[in-house]
């Protein structure tokens, strides 16, 4: 026996009848939508969950942390053991960037144009002997 029925008054019994009747009268459209909602919930529950590290919510934070770590490690390794000023180190890194982004430099390297270097060396030697 349900505890609700232990000592229910006529009022409670009638109220229960009325409420149950109102449930029976729920229209077909609402029943259909509830049915769809239930199946959607069960499908979501059965779908495999992605691991925490794949979670979209954590990706921006993880990306930012990784980028910060990379920058920190790069700067730490670039900093010379000696007393080179920070500005010099920054200038050197800017030059490095120029070299890397300079398409001419890459063309020379890829072309394997050794004669240019020979010519440049000869020019330097001639200059030194002339001078």
């Amino acid at each position, binding site marked *: 026996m349900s505890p609700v029925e232990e000592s229910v008054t006529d009022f409670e019994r009638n109220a229960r009848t009325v*409420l149950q009747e109102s449930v029976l009268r729920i229209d077909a459209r609402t029943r259909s939508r509830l049915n769809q909602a239930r199946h959607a919930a069960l499908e979501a529950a059965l779908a495999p969950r992605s691991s925490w590290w794949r979670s979209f919510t954590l990706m921006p934070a993880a990306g930012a942390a990784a980028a910060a770590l990379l920058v920190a490690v790069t700067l730490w390794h670039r900093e010379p053991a000696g007393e080179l000023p920070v500005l010099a180190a920054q200038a050197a890194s800017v030059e490095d960037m120029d070299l890397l982004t300079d398409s001419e430099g890459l063309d020379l390297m890829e072309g394997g144009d050794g004669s240019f270097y020979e010519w440049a060396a000869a020019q330097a030697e001639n200059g030194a002997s002339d001078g």
Partner: protein
Amino acid sequence: MPPAVHGDVDLTDSSAQSRSRALNQFLASVELRAFKIAQAGLRHEDDALDAVQDAMLQLSRAYADRPAEEWKPLFYRILENRIRDMQRRRTVRGRVIAWLPHRGEDEEDEPDPIAQAPSLEPQPVKRLELDEAMGALEKALGGLPRRQQQAFLLRTLEGMDVAETATAMGCSQGSVKTHYFRAVQALRAQLGEFYL
């Protein structure tokens, strides 16, 4: 030992497939009453449907592995939290909308033919009596404080005992008894001993 049964749900089978079936059975067994309870709290059909759907989703995702006998109080606890959230959001929205210019009712949808479909109904005279009683009860329920309304509906409509109701409401059994008693007193004062 006989199998533990919760309503129509067999609680002894633990495989994932059977668990899903059991959860489906459980949700199917409560969804209509849950909808009525949400509707009483929100007084809006679409909001009530959303609240029930959210509660189903959260129960399925987070508590499907819990023993099935815990599902009902957990489900109604989730549903109640959802109803409360929606009520709060609606209050805030209402304050914001009060500052906005009035919009017309042009966006009213066409009547849905499925919504007009008749359901199983009793004889006309009895139906009229029930209609009146239903209208009066729903109106009186709407005037109750939310906790009283919740205690009354969970116990009277859902048939939960005091302990289950206390878990669903997140309060002591003594509080449930108090809320329920006050609800019955208030409803009876408004409706009298309405006989069917």
